[in-house]
């Protein structure tokens, strides 16, 4: 790949993102012009409201609390879903027992889990983390099981022939393969964790971004509500750009072609 093309491929996503951002801002402004501040405050009013939330000391503690709730639930889901999923993949009786339970858990609407966890744990951070755990763990479970089941049998046989200990079998053979299934599931579960956390906070009045949204609703402060929405969207976008994307690129280093390898010749110009 020439330097020019490499530069172009780096610039294209940045330009694309900037263009998408500007387009959204323009549509937002047009919506505001058509319907007025009560229905859709302008971007300027929204950022002004966000500035107010930041300066009166509401914004940062709320973000920190939502992050703590969402990430605690997500971490527990990765641990529980990942371990049970691996176990179910390795041992079919466990799979036959756990798979229907995971399917059932996935079938329960997230809002039902919110109500149940608020009844069980009251309006605390624990209720939020628990809701995140039960709604995202089945996704991690299914991906981990699938990851174990789809490992090429010849690799397992090769590893057995060298008599490597079980922890090497996990770290060198199973885990790298499982990650190809797990990573997209983890990215989805992480984004879901934030949304579920906000929803539970909103209904439970447990503090955090969701609580801020509930307050804005009560006060019919659409600008503040929009400010909270922008905060959560920016947080999710930053998470994707700064955490998931570099991680994805690092994990998939082994799939890359050698520089100048034939495959790049077949890539469409639009993709480069």
């Amino acid at each position, binding site marked *: 790949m020439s330097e020019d093309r490499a530069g172009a491929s780096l610039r294209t996503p940045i330009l694309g993102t900037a263009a998408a951002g500007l387009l959204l801002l323009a549509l937002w402004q047009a919506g505001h012009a058509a319907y007025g501040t009560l229905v859709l405050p302008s971007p300027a009013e929204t950022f002004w409201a966000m500035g107010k939330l930041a300066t009166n000391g509401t914004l940062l503690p709320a973000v920190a609390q939502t992050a703590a709730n969402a990430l605690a639930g997500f971490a527990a889901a990765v641990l529980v879903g990942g371990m049970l999923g691996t176990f179910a993949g390795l041992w079919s009786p466990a799979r036959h027992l756990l798979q229907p339970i995971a399917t059932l858990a996935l079938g329960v609407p997230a809002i039902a889990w919110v109500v149940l966890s608020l009844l069980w744990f009251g309006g605390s951070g624990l209720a939020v983390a628990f809701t995140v755990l039960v709604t995202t763990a089945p996704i991690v479970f299914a991906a981990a099981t699938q990851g174990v089941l789809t490992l090429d049998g*010849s*690799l397992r*046989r*090769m*590893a*057995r*022939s*060298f*008599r*490597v*200990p079980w922890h*090497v079998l996990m770290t*060198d*053979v199973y885990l*790298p*393969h499982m990650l190809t299934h797990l990573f997209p599931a983890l990215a989805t579960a992480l984004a879901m964790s934030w949304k579920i956390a906000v929803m539970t906070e909103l209904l439970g009045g447990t503090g955090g971004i969701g609580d801020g949204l509930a307050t804005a609703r009560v006060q019919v402060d659409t600008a503040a509500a929009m400010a909270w929405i922008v905060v959560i969207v920016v947080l999710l976008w930053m998470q994707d750009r700064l955490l998931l994307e570099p991680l994805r690129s690092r994990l998939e280093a*082994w*799939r*890359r*072609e*050698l520089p100048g*390898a034939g495959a790049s010749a077949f890539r469409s110009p639009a993709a480069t």
Partner: protein
Amino acid sequence: MTTDPLPGTDSGLVATEVAFAYGPLPVLDGLSITLPSTRLSCLVGPSGCGKSTLLALLGNLLAPARGTITHAFRRPAFVFQDPCLLPWRNAVDNIAFGLKAQSIPRRERRDRAEASLATVGLAPADAGKYPHQLSGGMRQRIALARALVVEPDFLLLDEPFNALDADLRRQMQDLVRQLIEERRLTALMVTHDRAEAVRLADRLFLMSAAPARIVAEHDIDRAFAERDDAFLQVQLAWLQDAARPVQN
């Protein structure tokens, strides 16, 4: 590591009356085989007769339902028909994989793996390449290096050159034969290619269809370098003759 023979014999492995079945399907039925120590034995037979199963049994990957397998080796190593490389590890890490079963520090594992690249005819520049960036022949060389780097005293080869073209096949056959001689290893190779078997083997074993037994065995005493085409034709004729009753 040179293979030690069984005490008081020049045999590397003796299997007696071995039986094995996959569920109700008998694969081996009272099979007996004696492998000469520090020699390459080749196993030929009709496809699906249980050659690979026998290899797995003799290499301790499977346990026989009946019969005994006696051997003096401590470190068997396999080379399979498919190179079975870890796609997410580069060439050197794939070679070093087998060493993880031994308590060898990371640095030494890497050094030994790098040194073994040259043994199988790979360049130092190939060390960091991932399997999908290498040709089929190079991948099979890495699989061979991975087996040799653990310093095995019993090398088991399951149709290792099947996927290679004729030239590459010949190169790899010569390399394996040379390494077995240099290291004085006991080796057993499964092949469906009779010409390959008579060219490489010190002892030939012919298996019947499943449930399999050894129906003929034959020593080829001539040194590898002195096996000319005329000699190989005679050996091949013997093998074809012996195989006629078991052909399916």
